[in-house]
């Protein structure tokens, strides 16, 4: 049983890795978007498992993007390394913010994260000498000189890292800590869990992933700007994806990212401005009618039919 499962994973992986051999640039670019959104949706879900909702994904994403691009431009840093450093920058920022703010919970934390994303955006817009101001900054060339196979593999790497992180969060004691904290913090604390420490840790790790994703995105497109890099799309869409696919899991956000990523590309072709409305509707409908998401609802049906 297990062998056939791993075999099918392996086959799918090989298929995905060799995709550039038999598809064109457009499809690879769509895959890039989907893969990066997988990372965002997963990292958002990982924090959700502790009971905390973040509305600041775009903030960490944009910070990572700007850090990666500016470091590359000003110091000639290797683009790949700059992406990692972008993740580190986002992580450090999250650490500073986290120790200040993670005494707050629930709605207060959520609103603070939303405010933070906006603050980052405003700061960046108002430091034109450093960041290029409202027009943003363009890289002289995109990473890998725009080679779509290599950018695709970069996106795969980012997605794989986030999948591995999510699975680590599910298989180690972190899973127990997150679930306990989410259920009841008082019980968690009385069981020996240092709730604050765990929340900061999770916030930092997930923010670093979002920063790396932002760095990768910035280098693939060769461009950062306050409106583009901090767009609310990068917060709302991952949330919709994680919820639609099935929260509190690894494959739920992945499924959600694939579905909604494809949908959003289609929508862009036909409804250039209505997409936010659609995402909002999806979030509302999912929460109201099937809060477990696609995978969660399927899992429950399977259990019932036993």
């Amino acid at each position, binding site marked *: 049983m297990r062998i056939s499962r791993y075999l099918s994973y392996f086959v799918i992986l090989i298929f995905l890795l060799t995709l550039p051999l038999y598809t064109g640039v457009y499809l690879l670019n769509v895959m890039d978007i989907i893969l990066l959104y997988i990372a965002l949706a997963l990292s958002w879900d990982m924090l959700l498992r502790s009971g905390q909702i973040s509305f600041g994904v775009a903030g960490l994403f944009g910070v990572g993007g700007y850090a990666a691009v500016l470091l590359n431009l000003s110091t000639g840093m290797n683009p790949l390394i700059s992406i990692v450093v972008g993740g580190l920058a986002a992580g450090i920022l999250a650490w500073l913010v986290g120790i200040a703010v993670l005494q707050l919970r629930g709605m207060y934390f959520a609103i603070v994260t939303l405010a933070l994303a906006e603050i980052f955006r405003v700061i960046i817009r108002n430091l034109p000498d450093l960041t290029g101001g409202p027009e943003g900054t363009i890289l002289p060339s995109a990473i890998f000189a725009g080679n779509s196979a290599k950018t695709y593999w970069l996106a795969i790497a980012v997605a794989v890292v986030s999948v591995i992180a999510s699975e680590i969060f599910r298989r180690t004691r972190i899973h127990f800590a997150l679930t*306990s904290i989410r259920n009841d913090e008082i*019980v968690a604390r009385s069981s020996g*869990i240092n709730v604050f420490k765990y929340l900061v840790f999770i916030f930092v790790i997930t923010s670093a992933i979002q920063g790396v994703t932002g760095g990768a995105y910035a280098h693939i497109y060769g461009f950062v700007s306050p409106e583009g890099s901090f767009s609310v799309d990068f917060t709302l869409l991952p949330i919709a994806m994680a919820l639609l696919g099935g929260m509190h899991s690894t494959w739920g956000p992945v499924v959600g990212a694939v579905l909604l990523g494809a949908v959003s590309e289609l929508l862009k072709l036909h409804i250039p401005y209505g997409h936010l409305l659609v995402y909002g509707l999806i979030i509302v409908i999912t929460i109201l009618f099937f809060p477990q998401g696609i995978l969660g609802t399927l899992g429950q049906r399977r259990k019932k039919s036993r």
Partner: protein
Amino acid sequence: MEFRENEILGIIGPNGAGKTTFINVIGGIYLPTHGKIFFNGQEISELPAHRRCKLGIGRTFQLVRPLQGLSLIENVMVGGLFGKGLRQREARKKAEELCEFLDLTDITREITRMTALEVKKMEIAHALAAQPKLLFLDEVMAGLNSDETMQMIALVRKIHSRGIVIGIVEHVMRVIRELTDRVIVLDWGEVIAEGPYEKVSNDPKVITAYLGEEA
């Protein structure tokens, strides 16, 4: 007041007397506004709850809150993983032993299908998994029928025989009478009486606290 080695101490008092608050203060959910708390000679007044758990203070909760998303055995494992810092495999083994000790079967099941008695046992197992030296049982008998109460009394004795000091908050006086060596009575947050159950239950101050003043 103090807990003595090897004892089972009853904590009683009318509703709102502060019994659960007392547990919360010892457990570290609330910090004392004045006064000090010592545990095995060490002052713990400022320590956060998770540190006190590691030192050996455990407790159950009045309104049982099983952890959704974890199975029965996983619920129990939490105490071992974080209270004792055990590795997952060891924590699972200890948790299995505890479930056997408490007569809990079918331990890999989801927690949605458990009887009231089983849920309470799981709650106790969860607290025991952290290997406490002092364990507070907060109204464990609530909602149990006569038969189940007998079972639970036997269980508490079994736990006590492992050398754990027990503080038991109860409204069911029969339980207090049977289990405890000594009782403290709380009213409006103060200890108004202390001693063996027979002495305390005849104390006029205690009777007044429960029944109110004569007109």
